[in-house]
């Protein structure tokens, strides 16, 4: 083993652990050293759980020595966005409103990871209650982008993105209601998946919007992501939105490449509806050419305008989030960050009729995307329209955060993945694309993403040490 353990992707670390050439204690120790070195500039963690994680790693080491690993995740450190419950520890949601809340039980997805032998080194920064943006008026500072700490890392799963990109952790969980796994994945050069709605249980995860919330894996490679989803997915009778669908081996088609796949390119999202920055547009065109060179057929696909998907998402998200936050908005409005309050308050003024109209239009938008999948196997689109801006430029954060094409697939529930597809010349920050598949076709999505990842040069790129 030549690379430092913390630099290994999950699958490579797991293979070395299975071969007894790397111990979970050694891996965790190296991750903790990396965290100690970089955390002061990145603010990825809200709570570091060194002692508890080390005990878990020692237990994993002993068990693996006796009988081999339980799964590919046995002894692997996985970070948790701090709206995901870890028994016995606070889930603060990065908010002073939840500083005192201690989770009594693991979230369902954490229980699955624990059963598989994962280790939990800490709770990670988020935008407050998974909405808003980077804020400086909260009890914890906002996470920063490891590629350039002067820039934001995307969000709301900001600490998850920062920690994995900085090689502090091989993997982390995020949540995605309007793009919050794919956004930091895009800006941190990672792989981030929003699974099909209901494939991963939301039980024990603080809600933002019940019908739009998803829990998703964030990793450095497509294979790592598929391995993690294979443990996270599965039925949960106690989650009313659970699809009650068993997990699959999502790695099964990673080797097959994109040859023969029909990919619909939703160009109008970033060309007409919300024009992307020139280098994002160029990176998407280059990615489409590469996919074609690898044997995929690329054709244009037209969906309803991006702005309409976004408006439906905002109406639904606003009303559902207002239902969650109503009491606090009425009684403790000053305890939110200014930006969070601005994002949550509009939901208090969405009428019942508007909410139902948005849900009715949603039915038609789902049908429009389903109709596209009658003609193509996958969809390709922009993720963010711009590279990550400076974190201290509130006006630019405000302007660029909503310039994205991720919300359509929170509205429709289809699985969507962000993969790195370039690097901005001016700032040296990652750019990302988005691939979308029919419901529950995550294996197909991973196949295409892995084919692109192998053909493109981006996987080997990492933030420079700072």
């Amino acid at each position, binding site marked *: 083993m030549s690379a430092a353990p913390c630099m290994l992707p999950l699958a490579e670390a797991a293979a070395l652990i299975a071969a007894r050439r790397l111990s979970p204690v050694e891996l965790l120790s190296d991750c903790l050293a990396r965290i100690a070195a970089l955390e002061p500039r990145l603010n990825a963690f809200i709570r570091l759980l060194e002692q508890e994680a080390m005990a878990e790693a020692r237990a994993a080491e002993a068990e693996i020595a006796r009988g081999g690993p339980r799964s590919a995740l046995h002894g692997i450190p996985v970070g948790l966005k701090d709206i995901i419950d870890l028994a016995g520890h606070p889930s603060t949601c990065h908010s002073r409103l939840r500083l005192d809340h201690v989770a009594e039980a693991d979230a369902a997805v954490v229980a699955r990871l624990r059963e598989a032998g994962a280790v939990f080194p800490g709770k990670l920064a988020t935008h407050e209650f998974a909405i808003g943006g980077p804020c400086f008026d909260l009890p914890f500072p906002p996470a920063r982008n490891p590629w350039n700490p002067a820039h934001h890392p995307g969000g709301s799963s900001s600490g998850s993105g920062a920690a994995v990109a900085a090689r502090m952790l091989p993997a982390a969980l995020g949540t995605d209601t309007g793009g919050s796994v794919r956004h930091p994945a895009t800006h941190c050069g990672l792989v981030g998946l929003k699974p099909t709605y209901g494939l991963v249980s939301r039980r024990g995860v603080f809600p933002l919007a019940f019908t739009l919330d998803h829990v998703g894996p964030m990793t450095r490679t497509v294979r790592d992501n598929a391995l993690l989803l294979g443990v996270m997915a599965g039925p949960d009778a106690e989650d009313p939105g659970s699809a009650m669908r068993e997990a699959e081996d999502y790695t099964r088609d990673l080797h097959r490449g994109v040859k023969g796949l029909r990919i619909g390119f939703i160009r109008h999202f970033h060309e007409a509806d919300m024009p992307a920055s020139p280098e994002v547009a160029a990176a998407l065109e280059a990615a489409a050419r590469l996919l074609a060179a690898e044997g995929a057929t690329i054709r244009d696909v037209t969906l309803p305008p991006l702005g309409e998907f976004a408006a*439906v998402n905002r109406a639904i998200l606003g009303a559902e989030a207002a239902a969650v936050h109503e009491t606090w908005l*009425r009684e403790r409005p000053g305890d939110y960050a*200014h930006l969070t309050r*601005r994002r949550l*308050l*509009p939901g208090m003024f969405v009428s019942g009729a*508007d909410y139902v109209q948005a*849900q*009715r239009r949603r039915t038609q938008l789902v049908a429009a995307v389903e109709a596209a999948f009658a003609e193509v196997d996958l969809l390709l689109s922009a993720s963010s329209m711009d590279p990550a801006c400076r974190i201290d430029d509130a006006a630019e954060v405000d302007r660029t955060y909503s310039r994205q094409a991720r919300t359509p697939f929170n509205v429709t529930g289809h699985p969507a993945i962000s993969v790195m597809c370039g690097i901005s010349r001016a700032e040296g920050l990652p750019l990302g694309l988005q691939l979308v598949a029919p419901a529950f076709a995550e294996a197909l999505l991973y196949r295409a993403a892995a084919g692109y990842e192998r053909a493109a040069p981006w996987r080997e790129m990492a933030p420079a040490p700072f």
Partner: protein
Amino acid sequence: MAAQPVTPQDEQAAVLARAAGLDRAWAGHRADVEEAVAVAARLRTGFARPADPAVEPTPAHRAPAARP
């Protein structure tokens, strides 16, 4: 300092804030509430209303499963 003139929009926002139970937010963060009223109003025209009265919302309501 002279008091700000009260416009019909101000009065409307104040009424809406009271109706939503946001008296404290109105008192302490009035600009945020006014912005929220405007944002919500814009959302109303941000997407097409289905013309077919029979279009159901997503997700459709379902009765609990039958007992065995």
